[in-house]
């Protein structure tokens, strides 16, 4: 059975690459895999400390700054996963040139596996968030499960972009250098650190359709407000994701014939 040109052997190989990527990233460090959890956890901890105790930031109309931190992390966690996914998948082909030159396999699997690596920080931040929610007295709710479709769509979307970037990075290595800066700009241009209402009115209408805003809201609505994300936003995200993924896959497959000129 084949889906989009991938078969069972590819699925097995994808798992292998995932395991491999996870291992290699922390190989040689004493704590090893502990870092996969510790890194995002430290980041969240710092944010909690800074915004809750130093800045004492409040959401408009909220009484505690903890609610701001919860709001922030429910958007920042997925963002952390996105930037991790993009950074890993962009370097996935160039960083594994040894494999690409010595093993007959579908190179598409490398950026896909790279993108899925973002699941780790996402899982950590979600656990952290749930802990904060419970601490602040919120009872768990079934509506929290609504983040699952958003999560799937997020990874489909990011994998598509990651496939493009990975292919481009083979030819223009500057891609990996520019990426962190672009990500930083994207982060501050999207309503992740400050609510949409704080943006100028003129921009708000456009920002509603910002994919990262849609994704962030997809997590915030169920986790914070026990509401399902707006159906239009899910549909919009679904269309966007499928288009990004298929486009990325087609683009990658077109360019991979030229990889041997550069790797």
């Amino acid at each position: 059975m084949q889906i989009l040109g991938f078969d069972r052997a590819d699925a097995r190989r994808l798992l292998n690459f995932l395991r491999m990527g996870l291992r290699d990233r922390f190989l040689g460090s004493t704590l090893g895999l502990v870092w996969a959890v510790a890194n995002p956890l430290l980041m969240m901890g710092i944010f909690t400390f800074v915004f809750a105790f130093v800045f004492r930031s409040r959401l408009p109309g909220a009484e505690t700054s903890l609610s701001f931190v919860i709001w922030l992390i429910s958007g920042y966690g997925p963002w952390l996963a996105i930037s991790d996914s993009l950074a890993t998948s962009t370097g996935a082909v160039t960083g594994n040139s040894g494999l690409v030159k010595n093993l007959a396999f579908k190179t598409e699997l490398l950026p896909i596996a790279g993108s899925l690596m973002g699941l780790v920080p996402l899982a950590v931040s979600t656990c952290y968030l749930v802990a904060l929610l419970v601490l602040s007295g919120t009872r768990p709710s079934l509506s929290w499960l609504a983040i699952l479709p958003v999560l799937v769509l997020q990874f489909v979307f990011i994998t598509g972009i990651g496939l493009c970037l990975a292919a481009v990075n083979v030819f223009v290595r500057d891609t990996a250098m520019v990426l962190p800066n672009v990500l930083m700009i994207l982060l501050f241009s999207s309503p992740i650190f400050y609510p949409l209402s704080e943006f100028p009115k003129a921009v708000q209408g456009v920002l509603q359709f910002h994919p990262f805003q849609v994704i962030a809201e997809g997590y915030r609505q169920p986790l914070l407000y026990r509401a399902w994300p707006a159906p239009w936003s899910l549909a919009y995200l679904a269309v966007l994701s499928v288009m990004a993924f298929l486009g990325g896959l087609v683009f990658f497959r077109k360019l991979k014939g030229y990889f041997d000129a550069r790797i």
Partner: protein
Amino acid sequence: MPGSSRAGGLLATAVPGATGGEETVARSVIECRDLSKTFVVLDSQSIWRVMFGGESEKGFPALRSVALQVREGEFLGVLGRNGAGKSTLLRTLGGVYAPTSGTVKVAGPVSAIYELGMAGNELLTGCDFARRWLSLNGTGRWRVDRLLSEIADFAELGAYFENPIHTYSAGMKARLFFSVATSLPGQIYLIDEVLSVGDEHFQAKCWRRLRERLATGASGILATHDWTTVLKLCREACVLERGRIVDRGSSPAVVHRYLGLPQPRGHAAAFAAHLPSVYGAVAEEDMTLSFPIDVKVSSPVCFACSVESFRQGIGWSHLLQVEPRLVASAPGLYDIEVAIPLLPLCPGEYSLNLFLSERRSEGTFVTLDVRSWAYGNDVPLAVTGKPRESVTVLPLRWRDRRTLS
């Protein structure tokens, strides 16, 4: 094909003991036709053109309409200098590179050694590297565990097997890699220049491993510039030059031409044109062979001959040798007859090597004409008869006595 020789299968002797005459055609495991591979040359402008859907017109042809076939149980030698396209050929056959045009058919799982130290995260331990290599090549986990101890054993790394690879010496890395890449039996091997690594002891082990694999039905291609390896391992070979196969045939003949060795011209004396192209004999019966020669000078001409055999993975070995004997000292046509009573060879195919030389007064010999595998023009000797588990049949007498109770 330029320089193609006569039937290569006949020339190299079969494993002695095999039933003579009956030849079954083994299925081909690697086959490619009209295979071309062009590497696109990208400059700062064509990169963008390619990315936005255009084509690049500049390219470097690394392989040009290559056709070859490897039958089950055979190793094909691919000779060529650096940059001739050997590695590209192997990678294209192995599926790492997509061919620009032409077809590739490979029947079965491939174990490939394109270069030493692939996928090298040097922080991995040898054991982890082996595990990773095997699982990336699609080996199930329960099988990996069984293979690991065998790999550790063969690589002779001892406690180092559990140490990170960056602590290894170059030889240890080579050993680890070779052991891992050849740990799966009965596969199709694509091997690039690896038998030249490691110390003598390990090289000998590599040979034994490849011989074992051959004996259990492995096949493959060996790409190298080391012609001695090709002579030992491969019955047939081809020469790659600038991406083209410029010569092919039996390994000795190809190697001979590859090295550009001079061929005696046979001015003074030569084997006559009607020298049979194949000789036949029956095992353990009296054999008489006759060799017509044409002598054009009046100097002492000597004749010598030998019977040799080729075994894949081992190479050539002498079985019988007749010392040089004065046969003529005046111009004329001669028939030299050699009679061997009760031919002590088992049925099979052998290589008959014939030498004509001039004896100088100092006692040295000057070669006048040769028919030998080393020159790629030996004469096959087909021996038929009752099959035996041996190579030679000697008039041995056995006596088994108990000396102590």
